């Protein structure tokens, strides 16, 4: 999401508009998506909160869970989004700035709706967490090791972790299985793979070889490269149980 429209970039840059939020929400609902995640990528970099007028509109038509991410920096921000009908809130940059926010949100709303998103990149120093990735001019390495951060956010009460592997984002060559496996080793809460899906086989590999609980993708669905129904059929053929 940026300025009320759905956009998608490559490796977190060069975002293009791919469509209207309500039209896409209804399309994915009808095609059988199991959950939708809405990222307002402009929110944190500009130091403002997510524009929430659309959350209620989306909640009215969606009969599947959905998660809202972007600029949630306080209990009040989270409460507004959850009261508007979102199932979960996802925090990323604000959690890196103020880790105690995770504890506070988890205590107030329960771990089940507190998702921590981690933008991770392989570096010479290992997997590192990045911050403010929605704006290339402000994106920066946070100073945190991803595996240590995964342990910390769980201890603080995160109920789910979405690992966005930045190096593979938008390029459709598959999820970063090695990185996902490393995170899975230390992650006791649901782990969602994100970044790099380009073919049905990539989803199957993430479930089978990295043991993730869910796989998230954007480009391949927005562009119609993969149809959700066909993907689910392929996963079932591969012996992975999914909702039809």
């Amino acid at each position: 999401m940026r300025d009320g429209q759905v956009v998608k970039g490559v490796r977190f840059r060069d975002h293009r508009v791919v469509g209207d939020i309500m039209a896409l929400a209804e399309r994915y609902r009808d095609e059988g998506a199991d959950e939708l995640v809405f990222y307002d990528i402009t929110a944190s970099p500009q130091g403002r909160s997510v524009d929430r007028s659309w959350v209620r509109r989306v909640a009215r038509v969606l009969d599947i869970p959905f998660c809202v991410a972007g600029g949630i920096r306080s209990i009040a921000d989270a409460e507004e989004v959850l009261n508007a009908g979102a199932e979960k809130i996802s925090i990323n940059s604000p959690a890196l700035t103020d880790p105690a926010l995770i504890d506070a949100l988890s205590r107030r709303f329960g771990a089940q709706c507190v998702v921590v998103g981690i933008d991770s990149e392989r570096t010479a120093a290992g997997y590192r967490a990045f911050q403010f990735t929605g704006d290339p001019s402000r994106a920066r390495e946070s100073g945190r090791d991803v595996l240590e951060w995964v342990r910390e956010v769980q201890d603080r009460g995160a109920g789910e972790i979405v690992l966005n592997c930045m190096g593979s984002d938008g390029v459709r060559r598959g999820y970063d299985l090695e990185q996902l496996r490393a995170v899975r080793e230390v992650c006791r809460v649901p782990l969602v793979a994100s970044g790099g899906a380009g073919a049905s086989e990539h989803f199957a590999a993430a479930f089978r070889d990295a043991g993730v609980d869910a796989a998230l993708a954007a480009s391949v669905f927005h562009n119609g490269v993969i149809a959700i129904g066909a993907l689910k059929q392929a996963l079932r053929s591969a012996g992975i149980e999914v909702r039809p």
Partner: protein
Amino acid sequence: MSGTVIIDSGGANLASLQFALERLGVAARVSANAGDIAAAERVILPGVGSAADAMHRLRAAGLAELLPQLAQPVLGICLGMQLLFEHSAEGDTDCLGVLPGTVRRLDPSITRPVPHMGWNRLHELANDPLLKGLGPEAYFYFVHGYVAPLGAFTLARTHYGEDFSAVVRHRNFCGVQFHPERSAASGAGVLANFLDLS
């Protein structure tokens, strides 16, 4: 005062349930008022958050004594279902005691992260109006860290490392561990069945 009332137990996210009922043509009201709840045709006890917090709020609103005495159809959802039991290990909390037994924590393991989050099917479905039209092929969205025991009240179970009650019913008191408001057509089916109970 009549119609369907959603109990405001202080948690956030009552809108998704209200919208799900709205899609079924029912304008449900949200209330924590004992008079409203006693006079409602149907009562829904949602629940997001912790058992201790929710019971504290129900007690403060004078609802902990009222709810077990209700004679109209009552539906507990997720934590709301767990509150129908005698006790919850979550915060060592005494609950409403409509159903016997203790709610306990799911045992986490590397292959079974907790909270349990995802779409699961029901097993051993009882023949009950609450499950009309729903079979073992239907998927429902679960997100929970605690589970209710099995018993004579179990209408359907689900497996996640262990079997637990997914749908319960004792007289007018119904409960579902999953979120029917976020379980697509199968969830809407359960809500519609509940709205048909009298």
